[in-house]
């Protein structure tokens, strides 16, 4: 049996009167890299917000590795091993790069709300932080205040903060959006590296990135998944071509 990392059943979400997510059934397999594509406003970020507990669902249920997480708050879901990044960079702008990453490793190492450990003396936390800072290529900027980094650097930090806690399931919302070609290539390499051996769900608009990285793709249009499958299947799917790829290739 293939276990699923995330399983959504008949999930809907309304904002006021408007139904934004219209009954989604979706299964993310354990260990796969899954891309979610779709036009602007399709509800991709909203879907992430539902899975990660930022918003409550209107109806339906969400499971993480077989456990029902539908009603859980974000911190509980994170502790269960799911971590997410944000489309609009969401870091600690007044703290240094190093501090940002360190805040992200603390819970996973079991330090929780401790006020009796001296944080600079925690070798496991420091080592893990150093490792991540190096991995995201910000070693030389470790002391810099996050708010003054360039956009691409902030995006790298966003990924670093997301993966630092050691979550098994990673959701990345448009990790390469708004980047130059070289920055994008670096970002793709980074995503590939940091999600090695993990489950990745990624919202992405750039098709070269999607087809280069994803094992499977789901297409979300107007709050509904119109197709899920391998990149080759998606490319050939006529409904997808009509709804999405066709307009993209023009």
């Amino acid at each position, binding site marked *: 049996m293939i276990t699923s990392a995330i399983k959504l059943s008949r999930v809907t979400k309304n904002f006021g009167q408007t139904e934004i997510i219209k009954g989604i059934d979706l299964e993310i397999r354990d260990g796969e890299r899954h891309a979610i594509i779709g036009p602007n406003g399709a509800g991709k970020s909203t879907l992430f917000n539902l899975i990660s507990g930022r918003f409550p669902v209107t109806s339906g249920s969400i499971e993480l590795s077989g456990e029902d997480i539908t009603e859980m708050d974000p911190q509980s879901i*994170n502790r269960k091993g799911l971590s*997410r990044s944000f489309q609009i960079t969401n*870091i*600690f702008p007044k*703290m240094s790069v190093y*501090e940002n990453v360190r805040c992200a490793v603390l*819970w996973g190492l079991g330090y929780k*709300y401790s*006020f009796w450990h001296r944080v600079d003396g925690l070798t496991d936390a420091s080592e893990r932080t150093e490792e991540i800072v190096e991995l995201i290529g910000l070693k030389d900027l470790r002391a810099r205040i996050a708010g003054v980094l360039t956009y691409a650097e902030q995006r790298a930090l966003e990924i670093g903060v997301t993966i630092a806690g050691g979550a098994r399931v990673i959701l990345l919302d448009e990790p390469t959006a708004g980047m130059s070609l070289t920055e994008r290539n670096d970002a793709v390499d980074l995503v590939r590296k940091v999600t090695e051996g993990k489950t990745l769900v990624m919202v992405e608009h750039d098709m070269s990135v999607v087809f280069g990285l994803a094992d499977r793709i789901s297409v979300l249009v107007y709050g509904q998944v119109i197709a899920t499958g391998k990149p080759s299947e998606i490319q050939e799917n006529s409904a997808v071509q009509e709804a999405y790829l066709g307009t993209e290739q023009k």
Partner: protein
Amino acid sequence: MMNFAKNNFIWIILVAVFLVLPHVFSQSFALSLMTQMAIAMIFALSYNMLLGQVGLLSFGHAVYYGLGAFFTAHLINWIASGVIWMPISLVPIFGGLCGMFFGFIIGVITTRRPGTPFAMISLGIAEMVAASALMFTAFFGGEAGIDTNRTAGGPLMGVSLSSQIQVYYLVVSWCIFSIIGMYAITRTPLGRMANAVRDNPERAKFLGYNPTRVRWMSMTLAGFFAGLAGSLYIINYEIVTFETLGILESGRVVLMAFIGGIGHFWGPIIGAILVTFLQSALSNYTEAWLLYFGLLFLVIIMFSPGGIAGLIAKHEPVMRANLLGRLVPSYAVVAATGAAMLLGFVSIIEMIYHVESAISGREPMNLFGVIIDPSSSVNSWLVVLFLFVVGTTFFIKSTRIVGKAWEDLGPDLQSKGLL
């Protein structure tokens, strides 16, 4: 490692200063002022655990301080009457635990909604506690308050607390303990996450942390140190009234934190020293001290939102670049014009105050060593008015010189990588 050494250096200096001070200023007035300052430091730092560290603006911090003082007062009276035995030097722990308890209880309600709701609820609770203090006279002693005798417990290892110097050293010991303790807390996982929650509570959730929990724990810990400061208050004064947990006292700690600077750990220490000094010392010289005090607060909030600590910290890179000398001339100009403006302003206030006063209004007054008679001499008014107007005009001009000096430093700081 560098930081560690530097920090320890600071602590050693701190202890040394505390030990040496009573030998430099040995008058009883100075000694009791320094005792008050040390208590205020703990109180202000504990306040900044909320405001500076976790971003909770409280208008009711004196609740924990005052309750710590009242509970300790009763404890000391029990010790005096032999109900229980405990060395008086250790009662601050009890006061701390009381403050902690109330921080914990009140924190349950208040930490869910940070920002304006928290500020308002803290104000409401402060009002409530102050009102109950006047209602429940058995515990709070009504208008008269509760008095105690700190020597009641008898001497412990030669410490009887019968003299101010002994009280000073006791307070200072607890002050050092508290400063180090509160600093240490900022360097723990909870302390780091407090800053994270202050800056971006939403993101902290997605890292496994519950922001409400972080605030709540911060509040509990801040309550401990506020209560401890309250205990030292009762040991020092041997009397506590409802005013100690009132709104005015809560306001005083807000001022200390802001004037000192909430963005740096040691900011409130500066604020506590300055505010206590102004309150005590200035009020001996002039009746209008509250007015000057308000002015100081205004000037700081307007010109240096980071408080005095922020002002000092701003100069750190300049100092490291060895460029402080380039700022000195502009500062000298500002100091001179500022002094003229201030002298003019203070003179006007003091003269008005003198004339207004019914008792001495028709007599000459001593203004900074000059005997003048404001009620008959128009010239004296013209002189101070001239001083004030000219001082202010040139002061405003000279602040631009300072701005220019800073601008000129920019490229040099940048080239040294210090900006």
